[in-house]
């Protein structure tokens, strides 16, 4: 059964591919939950806020309200789905015990992260693009900076997938798995300017809103669509990259110490 000693790879790309394929196969097995459900929810937002209420609202920064909310709604889905996908992906092996195989394999922590986070981010980006396509059926849209739009889409998906990955390792039960997405991320996303410009807020609340990291994500993403933003696009990009860096450092610490994995 033993083979001639094949030296272990310095970079275990096959492990990354195996994890990535495994995770993508899981999504394809559950298309209703993975794709149809978030698309349906977002479509309902368009119907209610875009078509029904939006037609009675003033335009914001010269943008029809129905179109104005599209970047925010995509970002809302992107954040929640990235976290849900990645947190469940790593939590479930912990819950069932199959994580033993991951921990005993010749694979570096960052390779594990690339596999899981890559798959979760891919799903989120595809979902974001599907929702974008769906939005064009409800409202007229223009994208002034398509490459920036893709950059923000991918960066946000990766960053929040990584954040979800950390939540999945931290969680020691299904309730905790839901706590951060439901009680922290969703309120931040709703209050982060998904449905309005934070310039519409009174001065005090506008200052408070600037402490909400989601504001920067939505603002930058909306700028890529319409060329208008609540905060400068450079600041948005910097904040996103900063959060990504924090998540990378935290994940590295988790694997180095074995926190909630090896003790």
């Amino acid at each position: 059964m033993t083979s001639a000693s094949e030296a272990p790879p310095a970079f275990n790309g096959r492990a990354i591919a195996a994890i990535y394929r495994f995770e993508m196969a899981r999504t394809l097995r559950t298309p209703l939950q993975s794709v149809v459900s978030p698309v349906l929810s977002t479509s309902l937002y368009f119907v209610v806020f875009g078509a029904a209420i939006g037609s009675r609202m003033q335009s914001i920064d010269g943008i029809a309200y129905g179109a104005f909310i599209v970047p925010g709604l995509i970002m809302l889905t992107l954040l929640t789905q990235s976290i849900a996908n990645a947190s469940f992906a790593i939590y479930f092996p912990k819950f069932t015990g199959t994580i033993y195989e991951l921990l005993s394999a010749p694979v570096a922590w960052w390779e594990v992260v690339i596999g899981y986070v890559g798959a979760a981010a891919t799903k989120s980006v595809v979902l974001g693009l599907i929702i974008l396509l769906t939005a064009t059926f409800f409202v007229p849209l223009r994208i002034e900076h398509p490459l920036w739009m893709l950059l923000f889409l991918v960066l946000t998906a990766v960053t929040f997938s990584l954040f979800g990955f950390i939540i999945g390792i931290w969680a020691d039960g299904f309730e905790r798995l839901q706590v951060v997405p439901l009680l922290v991320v969703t309120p931040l996303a709703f209050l982060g300017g998904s449905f309005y410009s934070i310039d519409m807020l009174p001065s005090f609340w506008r200052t408070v809103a600037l402490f909400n990291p989601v504001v920067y994500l939505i603002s930058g993403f909306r700028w890529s669509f319409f060329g208008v933003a609540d905060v400068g696009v450079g600041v948005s990009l910097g904040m996103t990259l900063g959060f990504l860096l924090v998540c990378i450092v935290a994940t590295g610490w988790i694997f180095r110490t074995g926190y909630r994995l090896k003790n």
Partner: protein
Amino acid sequence: MPPMTPIIAVSGLSKTYASGFQALKTVDLEIRQGEIFALLGPNGAGKTTLISIICGLVNPSTGSVRADGHDIVAEYRAARAKIGLVPQELTTDAFETVRATVSFSRGLFGKRKDPDLVERVLKDLSLWDKRDTQIRRLSGGMKRRVMIAKALAHEPRILFLDEPTAGVDVELRQDMWQLVRQLRENGVTIILTTHYIEEAEEMADRVGVISKGEIILVEDKTELMRKLGRKQLTLSLQTPLAALPASLAGYNLTLAAGGDEIVFTYDTKAERTGITALLQALGEAGIRFRDLNTSQSSLEDIFVSLVSGRS
């Protein structure tokens, strides 16, 4: 001939969990290349913790481990590539097919796709007919085979089997024993923990006994049984005895079967077993027997005696 480098070298290994529970005290252990090593110990003795540290599932508190010459921390890729693990719990994916999950394991260990090898492993484990079946539809015994197939998918040189036959039927147990022998013939070193002492007795080349986080004995199995094994000579009497005569008081005798039998316990490692003198003394006492047989203590008897001796 120079001594062979051990394929697993455990040195000064200890583990204290965050709760304060000390699962392993200072453990030193060497596993020889190509052997079947049985690690015996009661529940909570530290068997699974020891295996988990060697395989990378648990961080040690102190000490080091080398697998095929590679430090399991500094050279974890090289060390882990050599090791296959079949854990105690039946932990499998539910919705994957058998073939997909075995191929996944191979990929995880950085090996290129090899459908022929996967087919051979599945056939060896009588899983080929189930190759496209989702794992959740398999019986417990079949799931156990899947876990072994996953552990073998990257062609390990060292295989850890943590309670491999717990809860499996006799037929599957025999199949597994056969597989283990076949793996050993192919040069794979096997380390197994088991509650079935007969399994260790049947399979192992060497036996290690762990108790309360310490290795209390490592010994060649046959040597161990020779050293510690007690032998008993049972004499079936022609006429039952109410009590042993005083002239036989110097022998380690007991009356059994309501006085129908005399049981003589003796030490196999002693220079003289005392059987000849006993038979002569019995003749002089007028005690005649119609049959006799001898029996030797099993590994289980030895194990119980070792562990209970320390409690």
